[in-house]
């Protein structure tokens, strides 16, 4: 079980002081926050991708690489990567690069974005949001799995004999989660590929996410990746703590009341009742989140939102101290109790490499002298298969593999 935080990278006025941090300040702070996540013993730091104020995180791999260089065990992830508007070629390259630089401490959560205007900024059309997510991801998989890709689709120019560089670290692509708050097709997509499913679990009542996760688990089994209980589930969450729960409520209320997403809407009390937001003592947070597996089944990753709505750095770091010091150690213990042996651990690069190669050596890609001419000289890497690239593995790939064969 992995624990961590996810940030949406909002730069929000602190309603108690009236101060809005500068971009420079907030970007420095996020690095401090991420390093502290590791210091307090949490496992994951994830950051969103946005291309408009008041957010700063337009370039997540830059941020994550900088953080990766200053941490040793922290897993770096996204929340979310825009699979719709980013060119899958660039995603394949950027995140493989980040894998190499951080020793494989990388995974991604794919999402479709939270604002309509972002589509045309990158030459896309929001009405094609779902088909874009499906086609782009299929291409991304192919770019990571095959050294040489011939590809033609609906939304970007065809590729002929293209190689995405560098190849994934140890020949194993980053693990991918798919995030969605309302779209069953995305749960289906995650299940089809045997990828993870991440429910942000912040904005809506749990019943809503339960339907998505139940669907994902059923379809994961349907596509032959394991039992429903073996599907890889991640959850978001939101907490604000003080030793005394009344102090937590008093301190958090102005931030809640003015928060960009839900401010001026439901009361703090209503929102706590309806969503997983928990404002109170560490014990209350433990109780609420220890019960998550009763709602969603045993799961692999729990991320908390702690650095939003104008909360100052000092407060965020204190929240991390409480999370790492008092909450997560207890949750780790409680969630490990009675956890069935067949429920997999959270994915890590090391475990995924071991799953592919066993005790044998992992692939180390060494270019040939082909000089980019991938089609005629046998391949761009010394160990690139000479015949047709290997078919993608797993029963789930039946229809897709057949389709590619036909296309070729």
């Amino acid at each position: 079980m992995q624990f961590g935080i996810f940030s949406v990278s909002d730069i929000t006025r602190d309603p108690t002081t009236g101060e809005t941090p500068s971009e420079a300040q907030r970007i420095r702070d996020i690095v401090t926050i991420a390093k502290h996540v590791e210091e307090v013993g949490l496992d994951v730091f994830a950051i969103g991708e946005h291309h408009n104020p008041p957010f700063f995180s337009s370039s997540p791999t830059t941020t994550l690489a900088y953080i990766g260089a200053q941490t040793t065990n922290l897993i770096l992830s996204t929340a979310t990567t825009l699979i719709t508007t980013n060119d899958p070629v660039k995603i394949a390259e950027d995140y493989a690069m980040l894998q190499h630089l951080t020793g494989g401490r990388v995974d991604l959560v794919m999402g479709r974005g939270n604002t309509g205007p972002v589509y045309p900024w990158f030459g896309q059309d929001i009405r094609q949001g779902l088909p874009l997510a499906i086609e782009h991801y299929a291409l991304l998989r192919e770019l990571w799995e095959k050294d040489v890709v011939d590809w033609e689709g609906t939304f970007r120019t065809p590729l002929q004999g293209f190689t995405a560089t560098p190849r994934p670290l140890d020949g194993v692509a980053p693990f991918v989660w798919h995030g969605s708050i309302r779209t069953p097709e995305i749960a289906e997509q995650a299940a089809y590929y045997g990828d993870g499913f991440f429910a942000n679990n912040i904005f809506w009542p749990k019943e809503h996410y339960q339907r998505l996760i139940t669907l994902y688990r059923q379809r994961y089994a349907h596509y032959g990746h394991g039992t429903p209980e073996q599907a890889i589930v991640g959850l978001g969450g939101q907490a604000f703590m003080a030793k005394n729960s009344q102090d937590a409520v008093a301190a958090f209320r102005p931030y809640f009341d003015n928060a960009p997403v839900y401010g001026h809407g439901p009361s703090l009390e209503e929102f706590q009742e309806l969503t997983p937001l928990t404002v109170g003592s560490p014990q209350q947070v433990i109780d609420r989140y220890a019960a998550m597996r009763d709602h969603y089944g045993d799961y692999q990753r729990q991320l908390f939102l702690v650095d939003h709505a104008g909360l100052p750095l000092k407060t965020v770091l204190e929240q991390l101290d409480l999370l790492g010091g008092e909450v997560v150690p207890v949750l780790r213990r409680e969630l490990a109790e009675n956890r069935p042996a067949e429920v997999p651990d959270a994915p890590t690069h090391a475990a995924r490499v071991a799953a592919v190669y066993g005790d044998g050596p992992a692939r180390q890609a060494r270019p040939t002298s082909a000089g980019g001419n991938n089609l005629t000289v046998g391949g761009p890497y010394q160990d690139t298969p000479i015949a047709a690239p290997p078919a993608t593995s797993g029963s789930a790939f039946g229809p897709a593999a057949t389709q590619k064969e036909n296309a070729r």
Partner: protein
Amino acid sequence: MTRRIAVVSAGLSNPSSTRMLADRLAQATVGELRARGIEAEVDVVELRELAHDITNNLLAGFAPPALEDAINRVVSADGLIAVTPIFSTSYSGLFKSFFDVIDPDALTGMPVLIGANAGTARHSLAIDYAIRPLFAYLHAEPVSTGVFAASSDWGARADEVRPLASRVERGARELAEAIARREPRAVVDPFDPDAFLGEGRSFGHLLGGLAGE
């Protein structure tokens, strides 16, 4: 099989003449259905009680339980009677906001009887220029008669050529006929793979469809 008629009333006062009109329309529709051998029950949603939840839904993006329950009762009904006071030439903001937080596809094919009330009969065309287009947009199927009640309809100087009772009866008859013509309403579960992929299909078909195969 007993059919269910959802009644949405956007009246604000209590007692409310919007609700009075809604009740008459509901009662008359039940009577018309019974005359056709169909039993029907009436399920009333008073929007006043949901006003805070509706605003919270607009701001926070999800329906609190009471509102979610009301929405589910409306979209799963066999017919809908929707009644609003006319404010400033159109439906009330509360009435519109309720339909704004319902999934835009959820009322497709729903037979609807529109009712409205206001101080004077000079507002009566609002049913056709303001309210009917809303249901047309939602692909609901409003019956051709809409029933408008002015204050005078409840009092001494009522319309003596076509009194309210006969207009209610005509609208109710049309709604009853529309309900009787249809099978009981089946609600599609959006989380059923058959619903989003097509029956028996796999994600591979979505991928293949994109590649034009």
